[in-house]
Protein backbone atom coordinates (compact mmCIF):
# COMPACT_ATOMS: atom_id res chain seq x y z
CA UNK A 1 0.00 0.00 0.00
CA UNK A 2 1.25 3.46 -0.86
CA UNK A 3 2.23 5.31 2.34
CA UNK A 4 0.28 8.47 3.16
CA UNK A 5 3.48 10.33 4.05
CA UNK A 6 6.90 9.54 2.61
CA UNK A 7 9.99 11.71 2.90
CA UNK A 8 13.43 10.98 1.47
CA UNK A 9 16.59 12.83 2.46
CA UNK A 10 14.43 15.79 3.49
CA UNK A 11 16.48 18.86 4.30
CA UNK A 12 15.57 22.30 5.48
CA UNK A 13 17.97 25.18 5.85
CA UNK A 14 16.87 28.46 7.38
CA UNK A 15 18.76 31.67 7.02
CA UNK A 16 18.88 33.82 10.11
CA UNK A 17 20.68 36.90 8.91
CA UNK A 18 23.86 35.57 7.33
CA UNK A 19 23.81 32.38 9.40
CA UNK A 20 22.48 29.14 7.92
CA UNK A 21 20.54 26.94 10.31
CA UNK A 22 20.26 23.29 9.25
CA UNK A 23 16.93 22.37 10.82
CA UNK A 24 16.54 19.07 8.95
CA UNK A 25 19.60 17.18 7.75
CA UNK A 26 18.08 14.36 5.73
CA UNK A 27 14.89 12.93 7.16
CA UNK A 28 13.47 9.65 5.85
CA UNK A 29 10.01 9.01 7.22
CA UNK A 30 7.13 6.80 6.14
CA UNK A 31 3.67 6.99 7.69
CA UNK A 32 0.88 4.69 6.60
CA UNK A 33 -2.73 5.76 6.38
CA UNK A 34 -4.47 5.28 9.74
CA UNK A 35 -1.23 5.31 11.72
CA UNK A 36 -0.77 7.30 14.92
CA UNK A 37 2.88 8.37 15.03
CA UNK A 38 4.54 10.33 17.81
CA UNK A 39 7.70 12.28 17.03
CA UNK A 40 9.87 12.89 20.06
CA UNK A 41 13.17 14.60 20.55
CA UNK A 42 14.87 17.48 22.34
CA UNK A 43 14.11 21.12 21.58
CA UNK A 44 15.65 22.30 18.33
CA UNK A 45 15.94 18.80 16.87
CA UNK A 46 13.70 19.75 13.91
CA UNK A 47 10.38 18.21 15.01
CA UNK A 48 8.33 21.36 14.42
CA UNK A 49 10.08 22.05 11.11
CA UNK A 50 9.19 18.54 9.96
CA UNK A 51 5.58 19.13 10.97
CA UNK A 52 5.47 22.48 9.17
CA UNK A 53 6.86 20.94 5.99
CA UNK A 54 4.42 18.01 6.09
CA UNK A 55 1.58 20.51 6.61
CA UNK A 56 2.73 22.56 3.66
CA UNK A 57 3.36 25.65 5.79
CA UNK A 58 6.93 25.93 4.57
CA UNK A 59 8.74 24.36 1.62
CA UNK A 60 11.66 21.98 2.09
CA UNK A 61 15.10 23.01 0.88
CA UNK A 62 15.83 19.68 -0.76
CA UNK A 63 14.83 16.04 -0.73
CA UNK A 64 11.48 14.51 -1.50
CA UNK A 65 8.14 14.85 0.28
CA UNK A 66 5.14 12.89 -0.87
CA UNK A 67 1.94 13.45 1.05
CA UNK A 68 -1.14 11.59 -0.18
CA UNK A 69 0.60 11.25 -3.53
CA UNK A 70 1.43 14.98 -3.83
CA UNK A 71 5.04 15.95 -4.36
CA UNK A 72 5.54 19.10 -2.25
CA UNK A 73 8.81 19.91 -4.02
CA UNK A 74 6.91 20.34 -7.26
CA UNK A 75 4.05 22.37 -5.77
CA UNK A 76 3.75 26.13 -5.60
CA UNK A 77 2.87 27.96 -2.39
CA UNK A 78 -0.73 28.33 -3.59
CA UNK A 79 -0.96 24.63 -4.40
CA UNK A 80 0.38 23.67 -0.97
CA UNK A 81 -2.13 26.05 0.61
CA UNK A 82 -4.96 24.40 -1.32
CA UNK A 83 -3.66 20.98 -0.28
CA UNK A 84 -3.49 22.04 3.37
CA UNK A 85 -7.04 23.40 3.20
CA UNK A 86 -8.46 20.04 2.14
CA UNK A 87 -6.08 17.43 3.52
CA UNK A 88 -4.42 18.73 6.70
CA UNK A 89 -5.65 19.60 10.17
CA UNK A 90 -3.37 21.32 12.67
CA UNK A 91 -3.49 21.25 16.46
CA UNK A 92 -1.04 23.52 18.25
CA UNK A 93 0.39 23.67 21.74
CA UNK A 94 -1.05 27.13 22.28
CA UNK A 95 -4.45 26.14 20.85
CA UNK A 96 -4.32 29.04 18.39
CA UNK A 97 -8.01 29.85 18.49
CA UNK A 98 -9.11 33.17 17.05
CA UNK A 99 -9.74 35.26 20.19
CA UNK A 100 -12.59 37.34 18.78
CA UNK A 101 -14.68 34.34 17.75
CA UNK A 102 -16.82 31.98 19.78
CA UNK A 103 -15.94 28.28 19.92
CA UNK A 104 -18.68 27.65 17.35
CA UNK A 105 -17.26 30.21 14.92
CA UNK A 106 -13.71 29.01 15.50
CA UNK A 107 -14.82 25.60 14.27
CA UNK A 108 -17.01 26.88 11.47
CA UNK A 109 -14.30 29.12 10.05
CA UNK A 110 -12.39 26.00 8.97
CA UNK A 111 -15.45 24.91 7.00
CA UNK A 112 -15.79 28.42 5.62
CA UNK A 113 -12.19 28.48 4.44
CA UNK A 114 -12.55 25.06 2.91
CA UNK A 115 -15.55 26.39 1.01
CA UNK A 116 -17.69 23.28 1.18
CA UNK A 117 -20.32 25.00 3.29
CA UNK A 118 -21.61 24.20 6.73
CA UNK A 119 -22.28 20.54 7.45
CA UNK A 120 -24.55 20.52 10.53
CA UNK A 121 -24.44 16.75 10.94
CA UNK A 122 -20.64 16.64 10.96
CA UNK A 123 -20.53 19.69 13.24
CA UNK A 124 -22.90 18.11 15.79
CA UNK A 125 -21.06 14.78 15.69
CA UNK A 126 -17.61 16.35 16.21
CA UNK A 127 -18.67 18.74 18.99
CA UNK A 128 -20.56 15.96 20.81
CA UNK A 129 -17.62 13.60 20.52
CA UNK A 130 -15.21 16.20 21.93
CA UNK A 131 -17.62 17.17 24.72
CA UNK A 132 -17.84 20.84 23.81
CA UNK A 133 -21.42 21.01 22.53
CA UNK A 134 -22.50 23.05 25.55
CA UNK A 135 -19.60 25.49 25.27
CA UNK A 136 -19.96 26.59 21.69
CA UNK A 137 -21.11 30.12 22.46
CA UNK A 138 -18.11 30.88 24.63
CA UNK A 139 -15.10 32.80 23.44
CA UNK A 140 -11.63 31.32 24.04
CA UNK A 141 -10.95 33.46 27.12
CA UNK A 142 -14.01 31.88 28.76
CA UNK A 143 -12.78 28.32 28.16
CA UNK A 144 -10.25 26.29 30.15
CA UNK A 145 -7.05 25.17 28.45
CA UNK A 146 -8.44 21.67 27.96
CA UNK A 147 -11.65 23.02 26.47
CA UNK A 148 -9.73 25.32 24.16
CA UNK A 149 -7.62 22.42 22.95
CA UNK A 150 -10.74 20.34 22.32
CA UNK A 151 -12.19 23.21 20.28
CA UNK A 152 -8.90 23.34 18.38
CA UNK A 153 -9.12 19.58 17.70
CA UNK A 154 -12.73 20.02 16.55
CA UNK A 155 -11.59 22.76 14.17
CA UNK A 156 -8.77 20.57 12.90
CA UNK A 157 -10.99 17.57 12.11
CA UNK A 158 -14.26 19.25 11.11
CA UNK A 159 -13.31 19.09 7.43
CA UNK A 160 -12.24 15.44 7.65
CA UNK A 161 -8.55 15.93 6.87
CA UNK A 162 -6.41 13.06 5.69
CA UNK A 163 -3.74 13.90 8.25
CA UNK A 164 -3.94 15.49 11.68
CA UNK A 165 -0.69 17.20 12.64
CA UNK A 166 -0.45 17.92 16.36
CA UNK A 167 2.35 20.10 17.66
CA UNK A 168 2.76 19.44 21.41
CA UNK A 169 -1.03 19.25 21.91
CA UNK A 170 -0.67 18.61 25.64
CA UNK A 171 2.25 20.99 26.22
CA UNK A 172 0.10 23.63 27.94
CA UNK A 173 -2.27 21.29 29.77
CA UNK A 174 -2.35 19.74 33.22
CA UNK A 175 -2.19 15.95 33.44
CA UNK A 176 -5.97 15.50 33.65
CA UNK A 177 -6.67 17.60 30.58
CA UNK A 178 -3.66 16.07 28.82
CA UNK A 179 -5.16 12.65 29.33
CA UNK A 180 -8.54 13.81 28.00
CA UNK A 181 -6.93 15.26 24.86
CA UNK A 182 -4.78 12.19 24.31
CA UNK A 183 -7.79 9.92 24.73
CA UNK A 184 -9.61 11.92 22.13
CA UNK A 185 -6.74 11.68 19.69
CA UNK A 186 -6.56 7.96 20.34
CA UNK A 187 -10.34 7.66 19.78
CA UNK A 188 -10.11 9.62 16.56
CA UNK A 189 -7.39 7.30 15.35
CA UNK A 190 -9.10 4.10 16.43
CA UNK A 191 -12.65 4.98 15.49
CA UNK A 192 -12.14 6.93 12.28
CA UNK A 193 -8.68 5.67 11.27
CA UNK A 194 -7.52 9.24 11.44
CA UNK A 195 -3.84 9.46 10.54
CA UNK A 196 -2.10 11.45 13.26
CA UNK A 197 1.43 12.75 13.49
CA UNK A 198 2.04 14.17 16.94
CA UNK A 199 5.09 16.01 18.24
CA UNK A 200 5.62 15.74 21.96
CA UNK A 201 8.18 15.98 24.73
CA UNK A 202 6.02 13.94 27.02
CA UNK A 203 6.82 10.17 27.06
CA UNK A 204 3.34 9.42 28.44
CA UNK A 205 1.79 11.29 25.52
CA UNK A 206 4.04 9.52 23.05
CA UNK A 207 3.02 6.18 24.54
CA UNK A 208 -0.55 6.48 23.18
CA UNK A 209 0.80 6.42 19.63
CA UNK A 210 1.22 3.27 17.50
CA UNK A 211 4.81 4.16 16.81
CA UNK A 212 7.38 6.56 18.22
CA UNK A 213 9.89 8.30 15.96
CA UNK A 214 12.91 9.79 17.70
CA UNK A 215 14.72 12.82 16.29
CA UNK A 216 18.00 14.46 17.11
CA UNK A 217 19.96 17.18 15.33
CA UNK A 218 17.66 17.23 12.33
CA UNK A 219 17.69 13.49 11.75
CA UNK A 220 15.57 10.51 12.71
CA UNK A 221 17.62 8.43 15.10
CA UNK A 222 15.17 5.74 16.02
CA UNK A 223 11.75 4.38 15.35
Amino acid sequence: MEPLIATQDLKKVYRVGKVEVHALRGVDLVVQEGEFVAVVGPSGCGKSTLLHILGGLTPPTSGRVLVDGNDFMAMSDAERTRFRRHKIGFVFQRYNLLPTLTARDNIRIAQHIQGNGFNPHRFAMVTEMLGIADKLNRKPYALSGGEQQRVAIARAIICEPKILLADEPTGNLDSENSQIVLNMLRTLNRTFRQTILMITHNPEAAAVADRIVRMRDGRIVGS
Partner: protein
Amino acid sequence: MIVENVLHRPIRTLVSILAVAIEVGMVMLVVGMTHGLLNEYAKRVEGVGADVMIQPPNASFFFGLSSAPMPVKIADRLAELPHVLAVTPVLFQSYSTGGVPIIVYGIDMPSWNRVTGGFVYLQGGPFRGPNDILVDDIYARDNHIRLGQTLNVYQDFQVVGIVEHGKGSRLFIPLATAQDMAGAHDKASIFYVKCVDPAYTDSVIASVRQLLPNYTVLSIKQFMTLVTSNDLPALTAFITALIAVAVCIGFLVIFLSMYTTITERTREIGILKSLGASKAYIIQVILREAALLCLVGIVAGIVGTIVAARVIQSSFPTISVDLTPLWGLRAAALALAGALLGAFYPAFRAARLDPVDALAYE
Protein backbone atom coordinates in the same frame (compact mmCIF):
# COMPACT_ATOMS: atom_id res chain seq x y z
CA MET B 1 -15.33 37.32 11.98
CA ILE B 2 -15.30 40.75 10.33
CA VAL B 3 -17.80 42.23 12.81
CA GLU B 4 -16.09 40.61 15.81
CA ASN B 5 -12.72 41.97 14.70
CA VAL B 6 -14.14 45.45 14.30
CA LEU B 7 -15.76 45.32 17.74
CA HIS B 8 -12.60 43.92 19.34
CA ARG B 9 -10.86 47.31 19.27
CA PRO B 10 -13.65 49.84 19.86
CA ILE B 11 -11.48 52.96 20.08
CA ARG B 12 -9.63 52.23 16.86
CA THR B 13 -12.91 51.39 15.21
CA LEU B 14 -14.47 54.64 16.42
CA VAL B 15 -11.50 56.71 15.23
CA SER B 16 -11.64 55.05 11.80
CA ILE B 17 -15.39 55.57 11.52
CA LEU B 18 -15.02 59.17 12.65
CA ALA B 19 -12.33 59.83 10.04
CA VAL B 20 -14.49 58.44 7.25
CA ALA B 21 -17.50 60.36 8.59
CA ILE B 22 -15.45 63.59 8.59
CA GLU B 23 -14.28 62.81 5.06
CA VAL B 24 -17.84 62.29 3.83
CA GLY B 25 -19.12 65.27 5.80
CA MET B 26 -16.35 67.53 4.51
CA VAL B 27 -17.07 66.65 0.88
CA MET B 28 -20.83 66.98 1.26
CA LEU B 29 -20.73 70.21 3.28
CA VAL B 30 -18.16 71.97 1.11
CA VAL B 31 -20.00 71.10 -2.06
CA GLY B 32 -23.38 71.70 -0.42
CA MET B 33 -22.41 75.11 0.91
CA THR B 34 -20.76 76.14 -2.37
CA HIS B 35 -23.72 75.11 -4.43
CA GLY B 36 -26.11 76.46 -1.83
CA LEU B 37 -24.42 79.84 -2.04
CA LEU B 38 -24.54 79.80 -5.83
CA ASN B 39 -28.07 78.50 -6.14
CA GLU B 40 -29.36 80.94 -3.60
CA TYR B 41 -27.60 83.80 -5.40
CA ALA B 42 -28.91 82.58 -8.73
CA LYS B 43 -32.48 82.49 -7.40
CA ARG B 44 -32.15 86.04 -6.15
CA VAL B 45 -30.84 87.17 -9.54
CA GLU B 46 -33.79 85.41 -11.16
CA GLY B 47 -36.02 87.12 -8.60
CA VAL B 48 -35.01 90.52 -10.02
CA GLY B 49 -37.46 89.72 -12.77
CA ALA B 50 -35.26 90.85 -15.67
CA ASP B 51 -34.82 88.85 -18.87
CA VAL B 52 -31.27 89.85 -19.82
CA MET B 53 -28.15 90.84 -17.87
CA ILE B 54 -25.24 92.79 -19.30
CA GLN B 55 -21.82 92.92 -17.72
CA PRO B 56 -18.52 94.54 -18.67
CA PRO B 57 -16.15 92.75 -21.05
CA ASN B 58 -14.37 89.80 -19.38
CA ALA B 59 -16.47 90.05 -16.23
CA SER B 60 -17.04 86.84 -14.38
CA PHE B 61 -20.71 85.95 -14.54
CA PHE B 62 -20.22 84.63 -11.02
CA PHE B 63 -21.39 87.56 -8.88
CA GLY B 64 -20.62 89.80 -11.87
CA LEU B 65 -17.41 90.96 -10.26
CA SER B 66 -15.28 93.22 -12.38
CA SER B 67 -12.75 95.89 -11.71
CA ALA B 68 -13.98 97.91 -14.68
CA PRO B 69 -17.61 98.91 -14.27
CA MET B 70 -19.58 100.26 -17.24
CA PRO B 71 -20.80 103.82 -17.85
CA VAL B 72 -24.37 104.23 -16.64
CA LYS B 73 -25.29 106.15 -19.77
CA ILE B 74 -25.23 102.85 -21.66
CA ALA B 75 -28.61 102.23 -20.03
CA ASP B 76 -30.18 104.97 -22.17
CA ARG B 77 -28.93 103.35 -25.37
CA LEU B 78 -30.12 99.93 -24.20
CA ALA B 79 -33.55 101.33 -23.41
CA GLU B 80 -33.87 102.49 -27.02
CA LEU B 81 -33.40 98.98 -28.40
CA PRO B 82 -36.49 97.27 -29.83
CA HIS B 83 -38.60 95.16 -27.42
CA VAL B 84 -36.88 96.57 -24.35
CA LEU B 85 -39.33 97.61 -21.66
CA ALA B 86 -36.93 98.84 -18.99
CA VAL B 87 -33.25 98.88 -18.04
CA THR B 88 -31.78 99.34 -14.57
CA PRO B 89 -28.12 99.81 -13.66
CA VAL B 90 -26.72 98.25 -10.47
CA LEU B 91 -23.34 98.89 -8.90
CA PHE B 92 -22.03 96.08 -6.72
CA GLN B 93 -20.35 96.74 -3.44
CA SER B 94 -18.87 93.65 -1.83
CA TYR B 95 -19.29 93.34 1.91
CA SER B 96 -19.22 90.56 4.45
CA THR B 97 -21.11 89.86 7.65
CA GLY B 98 -19.63 87.31 10.01
CA GLY B 99 -17.47 85.90 7.24
CA VAL B 100 -20.42 85.49 4.87
CA PRO B 101 -19.88 87.48 1.65
CA ILE B 102 -22.69 89.76 0.55
CA ILE B 103 -22.98 91.85 -2.60
CA VAL B 104 -24.62 95.13 -1.69
CA TYR B 105 -26.71 96.48 -4.59
CA GLY B 106 -26.43 100.14 -5.38
CA ILE B 107 -29.73 100.73 -7.20
CA ASP B 108 -31.52 103.47 -9.07
CA MET B 109 -34.96 103.13 -7.48
CA PRO B 110 -37.21 104.35 -10.36
CA SER B 111 -35.66 102.11 -13.02
CA TRP B 112 -35.27 99.25 -10.51
CA ASN B 113 -38.99 99.40 -9.83
CA ARG B 114 -39.76 99.32 -13.57
CA VAL B 115 -37.67 96.19 -14.10
CA THR B 116 -38.49 94.34 -10.89
CA GLY B 117 -42.02 95.52 -10.20
CA GLY B 118 -40.76 97.13 -6.98
CA PHE B 119 -40.03 95.81 -3.51
CA VAL B 120 -42.59 94.36 -1.17
CA TYR B 121 -42.03 96.41 1.96
CA LEU B 122 -42.61 94.43 5.13
CA GLN B 123 -41.71 97.50 7.19
CA GLY B 124 -40.86 101.08 6.25
CA GLY B 125 -40.52 102.30 2.68
CA PRO B 126 -38.11 103.35 -0.07
CA PHE B 127 -34.97 105.53 0.21
CA ARG B 128 -35.53 109.08 1.37
CA GLY B 129 -31.89 110.16 1.42
CA PRO B 130 -28.41 109.13 0.25
CA ASN B 131 -27.54 107.34 3.49
CA ASP B 132 -30.61 105.12 3.61
CA ILE B 133 -30.44 101.39 3.28
CA LEU B 134 -32.99 98.67 2.59
CA VAL B 135 -32.51 95.28 4.18
CA ASP B 136 -34.27 92.04 3.24
CA ASP B 137 -36.24 90.17 5.89
CA ILE B 138 -33.78 87.22 6.17
CA TYR B 139 -30.78 89.48 6.73
CA ALA B 140 -32.77 91.58 9.19
CA ARG B 141 -33.87 88.52 11.16
CA ASP B 142 -30.41 86.96 11.12
CA ASN B 143 -28.71 90.17 12.28
CA HIS B 144 -31.51 91.42 14.55
CA ILE B 145 -31.92 94.59 12.52
CA ARG B 146 -34.82 96.91 13.27
CA LEU B 147 -36.32 99.65 11.22
CA GLY B 148 -34.70 103.02 11.90
CA GLN B 149 -31.49 101.68 13.36
CA THR B 150 -28.06 102.55 12.05
CA LEU B 151 -26.23 99.92 10.04
CA ASN B 152 -22.58 100.27 9.17
CA VAL B 153 -21.68 99.07 5.70
CA TYR B 154 -18.28 100.83 5.37
CA GLN B 155 -20.22 103.92 6.46
CA ASP B 156 -23.30 104.49 8.58
CA PHE B 157 -26.68 103.98 6.93
CA GLN B 158 -30.14 104.28 8.36
CA VAL B 159 -32.41 101.29 7.81
CA VAL B 160 -35.51 102.79 6.22
CA GLY B 161 -37.15 99.63 4.93
CA ILE B 162 -37.26 95.90 5.44
CA VAL B 163 -38.22 94.20 2.19
CA GLU B 164 -39.25 90.72 1.19
CA HIS B 165 -36.21 88.66 0.22
CA GLY B 166 -35.53 87.31 -3.25
CA LYS B 167 -34.67 90.34 -5.41
CA GLY B 168 -30.97 90.41 -6.28
CA SER B 169 -29.37 91.16 -2.94
CA ARG B 170 -30.04 91.38 0.76
CA LEU B 171 -28.81 94.97 1.16
CA PHE B 172 -29.69 97.90 -1.12
CA ILE B 173 -28.30 101.41 -1.10
CA PRO B 174 -28.85 104.31 -3.52
CA LEU B 175 -26.83 103.98 -6.73
CA ALA B 176 -25.22 107.42 -6.31
CA THR B 177 -24.05 106.56 -2.79
CA ALA B 178 -22.59 103.28 -4.01
CA GLN B 179 -20.79 105.15 -6.79
CA ASP B 180 -19.38 107.64 -4.29
CA MET B 181 -18.19 104.85 -1.99
CA ALA B 182 -16.51 103.02 -4.86
CA GLY B 183 -15.15 106.15 -6.52
CA ALA B 184 -16.93 105.00 -9.65
CA HIS B 185 -19.07 107.97 -10.64
CA ASP B 186 -21.68 107.31 -13.30
CA LYS B 187 -20.67 103.66 -13.41
CA ALA B 188 -22.58 100.40 -13.06
CA SER B 189 -21.51 96.78 -12.57
CA ILE B 190 -24.46 95.28 -14.36
CA PHE B 191 -27.53 96.23 -16.32
CA TYR B 192 -30.71 94.28 -15.89
CA VAL B 193 -32.96 94.48 -18.94
CA LYS B 194 -36.67 93.70 -18.96
CA CYS B 195 -38.18 92.87 -22.34
CA VAL B 196 -41.72 93.78 -23.29
CA ASP B 197 -42.24 90.05 -23.47
CA PRO B 198 -39.85 87.24 -22.46
CA ALA B 199 -40.29 85.83 -25.99
CA TYR B 200 -38.12 88.71 -27.26
CA THR B 201 -35.17 87.78 -25.06
CA ASP B 202 -33.05 86.31 -27.86
CA SER B 203 -33.81 89.17 -30.13
CA VAL B 204 -32.85 91.70 -27.46
CA ILE B 205 -29.63 89.79 -26.71
CA ALA B 206 -28.73 89.93 -30.41
CA SER B 207 -29.35 93.67 -30.51
CA VAL B 208 -27.27 94.22 -27.35
CA ARG B 209 -24.39 92.20 -28.76
CA GLN B 210 -24.48 94.32 -31.86
CA LEU B 211 -24.48 97.49 -29.80
CA LEU B 212 -21.88 96.31 -27.25
CA PRO B 213 -19.81 93.70 -29.08
CA ASN B 214 -17.36 92.74 -26.31
CA TYR B 215 -19.74 92.82 -23.38
CA THR B 216 -20.97 89.77 -21.54
CA VAL B 217 -24.62 89.42 -22.40
CA LEU B 218 -26.65 86.60 -20.95
CA SER B 219 -30.29 85.77 -20.64
CA ILE B 220 -31.28 85.15 -17.04
CA LYS B 221 -32.11 81.57 -18.05
CA GLN B 222 -28.57 81.09 -19.39
CA PHE B 223 -27.15 82.57 -16.20
CA MET B 224 -29.24 80.22 -14.08
CA THR B 225 -28.07 77.23 -16.10
CA LEU B 226 -24.42 78.25 -15.78
CA VAL B 227 -24.53 78.93 -12.05
CA THR B 228 -26.58 75.90 -11.09
CA SER B 229 -24.84 73.46 -13.41
CA ASN B 230 -22.53 72.30 -10.58
CA ASP B 231 -19.66 72.71 -12.99
CA LEU B 232 -18.20 76.11 -12.34
CA PRO B 233 -14.61 76.16 -13.59
CA ALA B 234 -13.61 78.73 -10.97
CA LEU B 235 -14.81 76.50 -8.18
CA THR B 236 -13.83 73.14 -9.58
CA ALA B 237 -10.21 73.49 -8.49
CA PHE B 238 -11.25 74.64 -5.02
CA ILE B 239 -13.72 71.81 -4.56
CA THR B 240 -11.30 69.26 -6.04
CA ALA B 241 -8.55 70.36 -3.66
CA LEU B 242 -10.82 70.05 -0.63
CA ILE B 243 -12.11 66.68 -1.78
CA ALA B 244 -8.52 65.51 -2.25
CA VAL B 245 -7.67 66.57 1.31
CA ALA B 246 -10.76 64.77 2.62
CA VAL B 247 -9.97 61.58 0.70
CA CYS B 248 -6.36 61.72 1.94
CA ILE B 249 -7.59 61.91 5.55
CA GLY B 250 -9.79 58.85 5.03
CA PHE B 251 -7.07 56.99 3.18
CA LEU B 252 -4.40 57.64 5.78
CA VAL B 253 -6.56 56.81 8.79
CA ILE B 254 -7.81 53.56 7.27
CA PHE B 255 -4.28 52.72 6.16
CA LEU B 256 -2.93 53.28 9.66
CA SER B 257 -5.82 51.48 11.29
CA MET B 258 -5.53 48.41 9.08
CA TYR B 259 -1.73 48.44 9.26
CA THR B 260 -1.78 48.32 13.05
CA THR B 261 -4.52 45.70 12.84
CA ILE B 262 -2.32 43.50 10.70
CA THR B 263 0.63 43.89 13.02
CA GLU B 264 -1.51 43.13 16.04
CA ARG B 265 -3.14 40.14 14.38
CA THR B 266 -0.09 38.60 12.79
CA ARG B 267 -0.61 35.41 14.77
CA GLU B 268 -4.29 35.23 13.79
CA ILE B 269 -3.31 35.57 10.16
CA GLY B 270 -0.91 32.68 10.72
CA ILE B 271 -3.80 30.66 12.15
CA LEU B 272 -5.95 31.38 9.10
CA LYS B 273 -3.06 30.33 6.87
CA SER B 274 -2.61 27.12 8.84
CA LEU B 275 -6.28 26.40 8.12
CA GLY B 276 -5.56 26.75 4.42
CA ALA B 277 -6.71 30.34 3.86
CA SER B 278 -5.40 31.57 0.52
CA LYS B 279 -3.82 34.97 -0.08
CA ALA B 280 -7.07 36.09 -1.71
CA TYR B 281 -9.03 35.00 1.38
CA ILE B 282 -6.76 37.01 3.70
CA ILE B 283 -6.93 40.07 1.45
CA GLN B 284 -10.67 39.75 1.27
CA VAL B 285 -10.99 39.56 5.08
CA ILE B 286 -8.95 42.74 5.54
CA LEU B 287 -10.69 44.63 2.74
CA ARG B 288 -14.12 43.61 4.02
CA GLU B 289 -13.19 44.85 7.47
CA ALA B 290 -12.08 48.17 5.99
CA ALA B 291 -15.26 48.33 3.92
CA LEU B 292 -17.40 47.72 7.00
CA LEU B 293 -15.63 50.53 8.89
CA CYS B 294 -16.06 52.72 5.86
CA LEU B 295 -19.76 51.96 5.36
CA VAL B 296 -20.54 52.75 9.00
CA GLY B 297 -18.45 55.93 8.61
CA ILE B 298 -20.37 56.86 5.46
CA VAL B 299 -23.72 56.47 7.20
CA ALA B 300 -22.43 58.45 10.20
CA GLY B 301 -21.03 61.08 7.84
CA ILE B 302 -24.27 61.48 5.91
CA VAL B 303 -26.39 61.67 9.07
CA GLY B 304 -23.88 64.07 10.64
CA THR B 305 -23.87 66.24 7.54
CA ILE B 306 -27.66 66.48 7.48
CA VAL B 307 -27.65 67.49 11.14
CA ALA B 308 -24.78 69.95 10.58
CA ALA B 309 -26.57 71.49 7.58
CA ARG B 310 -29.69 72.05 9.68
CA VAL B 311 -27.65 73.59 12.49
CA ILE B 312 -25.83 75.87 10.03
CA GLN B 313 -29.06 76.98 8.38
CA SER B 314 -30.82 77.63 11.65
CA SER B 315 -27.81 79.51 13.06
CA PHE B 316 -27.00 81.40 9.85
CA PRO B 317 -30.18 81.85 7.78
CA THR B 318 -28.26 83.70 5.04
CA ILE B 319 -26.20 80.57 4.32
CA SER B 320 -27.80 77.91 2.14
CA VAL B 321 -26.57 74.34 2.18
CA ASP B 322 -27.77 72.31 -0.81
CA LEU B 323 -27.17 68.66 0.02
CA THR B 324 -27.81 66.52 -3.02
CA PRO B 325 -28.13 62.73 -3.19
CA LEU B 326 -25.68 62.79 -6.12
CA TRP B 327 -22.93 64.33 -4.00
CA GLY B 328 -23.86 62.03 -1.13
CA LEU B 329 -23.22 59.11 -3.47
CA ARG B 330 -20.02 60.67 -4.79
CA ALA B 331 -18.73 61.30 -1.25
CA ALA B 332 -19.59 57.70 -0.30
CA ALA B 333 -17.87 56.32 -3.39
CA LEU B 334 -14.78 58.45 -2.73
CA ALA B 335 -14.66 57.35 0.90
CA LEU B 336 -15.05 53.70 -0.04
CA ALA B 337 -12.41 53.92 -2.75
CA GLY B 338 -10.02 55.72 -0.38
CA ALA B 339 -10.61 53.18 2.39
CA LEU B 340 -10.12 50.16 0.13
CA LEU B 341 -7.00 51.74 -1.31
CA GLY B 342 -5.75 52.47 2.21
CA ALA B 343 -6.46 48.90 3.30
CA PHE B 344 -4.96 47.26 0.25
CA TYR B 345 -1.30 47.47 1.21
CA PRO B 346 -1.85 46.15 4.76
CA ALA B 347 -4.03 43.39 3.26
CA PHE B 348 -1.38 42.53 0.70
CA ARG B 349 1.27 42.51 3.40
CA ALA B 350 -0.86 40.21 5.56
CA ALA B 351 -1.41 37.86 2.64
CA ARG B 352 2.33 37.61 2.08
CA LEU B 353 3.18 36.80 5.69
CA ASP B 354 5.08 33.56 6.15
CA PRO B 355 2.68 31.25 8.02
CA VAL B 356 5.41 29.77 10.25
CA ASP B 357 6.72 33.22 11.22
CA ALA B 358 3.17 34.47 11.74
CA LEU B 359 2.31 31.55 14.02
CA ALA B 360 5.45 32.19 16.06
CA TYR B 361 4.62 35.90 16.43
CA GLU B 362 4.21 37.00 20.05
